């Protein structure tokens, strides 16, 4: 249900907006701007190869600019668009492991990971 093209009609621009300069990532917000580590990890596991490839190809080049931008503010003072950008980059941490390390083994590896889930926040 995180697929942006399915729920896109109900997501307003307000809910997907990102700080200036990061507009190219707005189409990934509905799928990948996830607030919880365990859910980000689960999304890596349930996403399709095309979803991961599309997100990684845009987001990996924006990682350093995004972190440099966000580092200018205390984490407790991020606006909603900034928090979405942070959450996108946290999802990138997971997706990058699929794209940079696992490659064609990712589907098999997802099976291994499913037995060692992160404990959700209480």
């Amino acid at each position: 249900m995180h697929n942006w093209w399915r729920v896109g009609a109900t997501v307003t621009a307000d809910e997907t907006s990102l700080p200036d300069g990061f507009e190219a990532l707005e189409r990934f917000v509905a799928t990948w701007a996830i607030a919880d580590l365990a859910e980000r990890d689960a999304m890596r596991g349930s996403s399709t190869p095309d979803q991961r490839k599309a997100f990684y190809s845009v987001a990996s080049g924006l990682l350093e600019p995004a972190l440099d931008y966000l580092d200018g503010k205390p984490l407790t003072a991020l606006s909603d668009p900034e928090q979405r950008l942070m959450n996108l980059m946290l999802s990138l941490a997971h997706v990058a492991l699929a794209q940079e390390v696992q490659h064609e083994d990712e589907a098999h590896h997802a099976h291994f990971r499913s037995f060692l889930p992160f404990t959700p926040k209480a």
Partner: protein
Amino acid sequence: MNEPKPVFEPQSNEELAWLGTDPIPASAYHDPAYYELEREAVFKRSWLPIGHVCELAEPGSFIRRDIEVVKASLLIARGKEGEVRAFHNVCPHRGTRLVPEVSGTQATFSCRYHAWTFGLDGGLISAPDFERFYVKKEQCGLKPVAVEVFAGLIFIHFGSPEQSVRDWLGDLAEPFEQLPIAKATQFVEYSYEIGANWKLTFDNFQENYHLRVVHPRTGGPGCAEPNPFAYPERYNFWGPHRSQTIWNNPNLPAPQGVQAIGNGRIVDAAGRAGLFGAELGMDFTCLFPNFTVFGPPARQFTQTVWPLGPNRSRGIVRFYWVGEEENASERFAREYVMASQRDIHCEDRDVIEAGQAGLASGAIDHINFQGQEVLCRHLFEAVDAMVAAWRSNNGG
């Protein structure tokens, strides 16, 4: 122009032979009778790390821990004056499990059966119509369990400990206290159940021989000349405890892409926090019987392996962090470290279970450890010594 090629020599078999070289009886890894002996001889008679003080942030904070191997449930609570106490999570009236919650903060604990109510010190505060009992309230407190806090970790002991945790660690105590876990304020955890004896599960993390076979993508790059098996620089022993000191291979290819940013920024953050420099900072340290801590501050994690039966165990892995993330870079880097470490770890579960299936079939009588599996041998020897002592003290 030409840099001298790095050389590496692992510790020789001769240096490690003091622990013996004989095959190890395979039955110790699947026989229900041996498991029963371990329960009595090891797990009821050793200090066991069951949590961290950061889980007990304030007076009234409590955690519940179920320790299946001794069929116990524990209630560990911080008292009004800040002291940490542990009790059996059992109402002394009729034996009811007292606290169902895994954790929380409260000033008293009430039994849901007859409403006996206990304070943070374990004392019985009130019980309805208590005048009709034949005992005094002072006789009706929660049953205490020995507990100590050392290096931030909460240790419990189900028997009567002959030594403090510090004395039990011996010369390991001082370097162990320098590890960042002693200062940790939070953690992220993952856990898993596995169809394998606790020692087999634990042994997987005590030898590097399997790395290049089982982890070709996640660990493979670390297995490079002149140390293709990524054997450690040396092995260290302190009584029943042990460690391996990881060798830094200067030949490793530089990480690229997101990996380079994740790894780079966590090193920056650990440096800012002053977490480098611990004596065990390059060690994978194992406390007897079932606890490990990987020392490098940029990717420190602990694992506790709990027996669930002769052929079953549970691993609990925790990434302990000192303080809140300072900025977005550190938050990203912590996430990357945790996800990448779990990515390596999850690749082991399948082969460990395959090992247990083979051992439990009884097809082989002995396990042959090579020199570089010496830590596995050391664990078995330490367990077996306690089992033998318990047997001889109990007419076995």
